[in-house]
Each structure stands twice: as structure tokens, then as C-alpha cells.
């Protein structure tokens, strides 16, 4: 009998005791529960609350008053999306079956500074090479041009070899990453590897280590290696063209390339987005995306707010010149590389 009690204790009571120590709080699937769940996710995981000076507690107070049990799901979505907008983060979204919320002011409050049609028509007369989403060719003064609109679609080493081989005789290279909204960091690493002959410090990663607002890991340095031997490399001058829609992984590409000696940044401040987004969800099933891991540049600076062009190279696209087929940012870059 004693043995039986022991067996029962081990098999039933102990798991309950041990697992109760590892409790997972659950929120009910109602307006209040979903509001509290979202507030808690951001409170415990969002990595820029301190850096952006956001008083998340007072935001709870403000938005809690807007929650009512009889509100519709659309009304709840609007309130929760507004609360997320307080983070001013292009990586933060709330996704319901009918809508995904976006914070757009990081680019909508600025001039676009880019019109792909101008380049395609007036600089190439539509005779450019295209490889996936990448457009490339030779513009004035024997300067190579690569339009790189995304890091989301992977490009292979063979593709990069082909592009750089085609442009190998050019005097300089323009990489146009205006409107590049990001993608995979592995794609960034692959591309950067063509412009350096030695391993470089790419930056630092800092992730949250717990739910506290100051729970962060020590910055971890990460390095990019040059492309493997035998691959096409580019060591001549490079100009990166940027605008506010240069975001996320593209922003990281600029953060790494800016410290290479042969590289200049031309155009407008990038859009930032240096927080690597995590995903979570609310009891009602809506998805949440938010920045959880901060990428710093090689000098330990945050790039969440964007990266300025090289001194003397900050400029907007002249809309009047654009009407006459001139991309003044591209013209400036050609001029810089031709000197």
C-alpha cells in the first residue's frame, strides 16, 4: 500500500507540482483579454521601449479606457493597431483575417526620392539586363548600375558572379537600394562578401534576455567573411543610393557597407528598422510582429532611426529634373564615381 502511494505520488502529484512551477499565464479571448495579451507581449519582448523613450505603462492607461466588452472586433483591432503605432516601428504589425496594421510614417512623411521608371526609360532606354528582381547595366561614364530592390528573394553566388563579370570593366559601381524594404540577412552577408577581401566586423546583436525592460544580452559581435576564393569581387569605388524606404535588411546592408573605404552613401537617410522582428499571437488568433533583437552597427551605434548618407552626399531627388528624365541622386553618384 505504501508503495502504491509512492507510485501515485510520483506519477500524478509530482508532475502537477513541477509543471505548476512552469506556469504559462493565459488571457481570455475577449476584448480585455486580447488587449492585455498584446500589451504584455510588447511589454516583455519589445526591444526599443527604453531607447525610444516610450512610457508603455501610461500607454496601457490611455488605451485601457478605450476597451469595452461590447466593442466589435473591428473596433478592437483599431484600438490595438493604434496602440502599436505608438512604437513608431515599421517592423510592428497586427494581423487579423481582414487587415494588417502598418506604421507608415517612417517613410510616408518624407519625399520618396525614387522613380524606377526614370532610370529604366531615360538611363537605359529599357535596355537593361534583368535577373529576377535585379536590374543591371552600364550608365554614363562607364559606371555600372545595379538596381537591388529586395533582399527577400535569394540570389545565388553564380548570379552575383554573372552580374559583376558583366560590369567588371566599369570604373565604378552604383548599387541602388532605394525602395529596398529588406529581406534576409543571409542575402546581405552574401552581397557584402563581394566588396571586402578580409573578414570585417559587421556589427553587434543585442537580444532581450527576459521580460524586464532592461533585460538585454551583452552586444555580440558578428562578422562577415569575403566571398570564397574564385568568386568575382569588386574593389573599385561603390556608391549606394538610399532613400527612406531603404529599410530593415537593406538598412543593415548600408550599416555594414558604410565603413568600407571605397563606399559612399548617396541620397537620403535610410528608413531604419534595425530591430529583428519576432512573431507572437493573441488569444483571438491575430498575429503580432514586433522588434525583439536590436542590430547595432560596427561602432555600436543603433541604426533604428536610419543611417545618414556620407557627408556632402545627402540630397533629395529634384522633382522638376525628374520631369525631364533626370534622377539627380543617380546623376550625383555618377559624378562622384567619375571624378
Amino acid at each position, binding site marked *: 500500500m505504501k508503495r502504491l502511494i509512492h507510485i501515485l505520488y510520483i*506519477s500524478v502529484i509530482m508532475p502537477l507540482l*513541477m509543471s505548476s512551477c512552469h506556469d504559462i499565464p493565459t488571457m481570455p*479571448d475577449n476584448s480585455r483579454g486580447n488587449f492585455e495579451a498584446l500589451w504584455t507581449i510588447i511589454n516583455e519582448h519589445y526591444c526599443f521601449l527604453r531607447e525610444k523613450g516610450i512610457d508603455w505603462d501610461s500607454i496601457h492607461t490611455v488605451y485601457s479606457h478605450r476597451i469595452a466588452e461590447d466593442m466589435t472586433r473591428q473596433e478592437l483591432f483599431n484600438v490595438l493597431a493604434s496602440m502599436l503605432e505608438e512604437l513608431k516601428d515599421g517592423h510592428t504589425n497586427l494581423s487579423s483575417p481582414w487587415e494588417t496594421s502598418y506604421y507608415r510614417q517612417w517613410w510616408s512623411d518624407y519625399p520618396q526620392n525614387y522613380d524606377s521608371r526614370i532610370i529604366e526609360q531615360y538611363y537605359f532606354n529599357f535596355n537593361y539586363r534583368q535577373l529576377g528582381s535585379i536590374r543591371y547595366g552600364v550608365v554614363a561614364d562607364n559606371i555600372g548600375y545595379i538596381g537591388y530592390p529586395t533582399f527577400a528573394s535569394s540570389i545565388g553566388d553564380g548570379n552575383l558572379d554573372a552580374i559583376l563579370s558583366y560590369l567588371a570593366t566599369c570604373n565604378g559601381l552604383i548599387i541602388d537600394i532605394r525602395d529596398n524594404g529588406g529581406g534576409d540577412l543571409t542575402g546581405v552577408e552574401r552581397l557584402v562578401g563581394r566588396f571586402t577581401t578580409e573578414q570585417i566586423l559587421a556589427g553587434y546583436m543585442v537580444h532581450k534576455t*527576459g521580460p524586464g525592460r532592461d533585460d538585454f544580452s551583452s552586444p555580440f559581435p558578428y562578422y562577415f567573411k569575403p566571398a570564397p576564393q574564385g568568386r568575382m569581387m569588386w574593389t573599385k569605388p561603390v556608391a549606394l543610393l538610399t532613400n527612406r524606404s531603404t529599410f530593415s535588411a537593406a538598412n543593415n546592408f548600408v550599416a555594414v557597407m558604410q565603413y568600407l573605404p571605397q563606399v559612399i552613401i548617396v541620397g537620403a537617410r535610410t528608413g531604419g528598422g534595425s530591430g529583428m522582428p519576432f512573431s507572437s*499571437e493573441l488569444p483571438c488568433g491575430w498575429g503580432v510582429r514586433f522588434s525583439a533583437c536590436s542590430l547595432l552597427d560596427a561602432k555600436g551605434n543603433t541604426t533604428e532611426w536610419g543611417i545618414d548618407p556620407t557627408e556632402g552626399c545627402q540630397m533629395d531627388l529634384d522633382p522638376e529634373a525628374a520631369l525631364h528624365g533626370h534622377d539627380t541622386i543617380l546623376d550625383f553618384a555618377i559624378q562622384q564615381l567619375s571624378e
Partner: protein
Amino acid sequence: MSRLRLTAILLMLLLISPAQAQDRPVLSAFTLGIGSSHIADTYLTPLKYEGWSVAAGYERMQAFKPSADSWITRLYITGELNRSINPAGNARMWGFELSASWGFIRRYSLPYGIKLGIGPALSARGGCLYNSRNSNNPASAKAAITADATAFAAWNTHIGSLPITFRYQPTIPVIGAFFSPCYDELYFEIYMGNRRGLVHPAWWGNRFELNQLVTLDLHLGSSSLRLGYDSSWMSSRVSNLTTRIITHRFVIGWTSEWLSSEHKKATTNRANINSALY
């Protein structure tokens, strides 16, 4: 010197065991299980998912040659696949795990066909939870190496004229080591070389697991039909991340005892056969 002497005496005692003349059939069991899974992993989601679970298992038991009356060895290999959905029903989580456990069990034969056993086991398991809705944190890798305590209680009896064996076997990892990503750490950071804080010592305070196996072997001639139930209860909390994986499965399988052909020829008397379980 005294340790050497003690080891020598122990070895001699094992070697002079009278059981060395007995035949030690290998009990092999192949099983399939189907049931439910209840999964939570706060690296992936704060919600608890529920769904189905399937598994395949192989169990091998044999009396331990140097001391066949007292000790048996047990190898238990399982592979499982779970699919669960969130409470809203709009997100899926897949889980798979492979595990292998080798146990060395002290066996006690009691009257009325009852056998009890208890002993240590070494286990290794690895797998992954994958949440299809997540972007940069879609998966949570699982791996653990543990020293376990395992035990069984078996009863060999009859239903009418049909011989049966009923067994209950719990296994509890006691200490070990396990893998967990850090709170909000991207696998990209791990890929770029940050391996700090990924492996943790396991003890009941941060990782508790209980595996229970209940089997009923219906001996149908030279082989047996195995019916049973197996459950696994794992709860861990480390790096401010909580994981809970619970599965319940009904089990069906086939078991048999076999001897090498050399032993078969020599065996003339059932009394010479030292079965690990039956």
C-alpha cells in the same frame, strides 16, 4: 588498491552467477501509437496548442548475461510527430522528436508471476517545434541528454487460457543537460556564432519529465499482441522560456522473443529460458 579489489570481487560475483547457463531471449516490440498532444512553447507563442500525436517505437529487453537472474537491459527508441493548433484554430504547430533510452534494471521476481524492476537509464532525445505562422522565430529546437530513473511492475497471468503480461513502466529523467535558445534570441545569432547560454544543466527544478508506459501483451503462440497506453509529460523553464509538451497515446504493437539459432538448438527446456519480462 581497495577499489580495484572491490571491482574484482564484483566481477567475480557476476561471472560465477548460475544464470550464465541460461538462455536469454531478446524481447523485441514494435509499436505504433496515436493520441493527443498538448503543447506550449513561449519562444514561439504564449498560447497553448492542442492536436494529435503519432509515434512509432521499438523496445528491446534482455536479461543481462553476467547476472541474468537479477539484471536486465532495456533499449527503447521512439519517434513521434505532433500536429497541434492554437485555440483560435488559425495557426499550426508541428513537433517531432526522436529519442533513445538505454536502461540497466535490477529485476525482482516475486510469487504469482509478478516481476518488479528498478534501475538507471541513459537517454538522448532531439527534435523541434515548428510554428508555421512565425517569421524570424519559426522553430524551437529541442535536445536533451539525461540520466533517468526507470522502474516497472509486470504481472504474468492468464485471461482464461490466454497468457498475458500486464506492465506499468514509468521513467523519470533525474539529471542531465538540455538545449534551449535564449529568450528572444534569433537562430541567426546562433548561426553567426553566439553559442552562449544554450546548454543548461537539467534538474527537476528547470526540467521535469515523466514518461509512462502501460502495456498488455496477449501471448498468441510464439508472438504477442501488445496493447497499451503511453504518455509523456515534459515541462521546462529556462532563460525565461517555458515549454510544455504533453502527449497521450494508445499503443498497438507486436512483440516476440527470439534466440540466436545457436541457442535454439541447445534449448530443450523452457525452464532454461530467462525472459526479461515474461
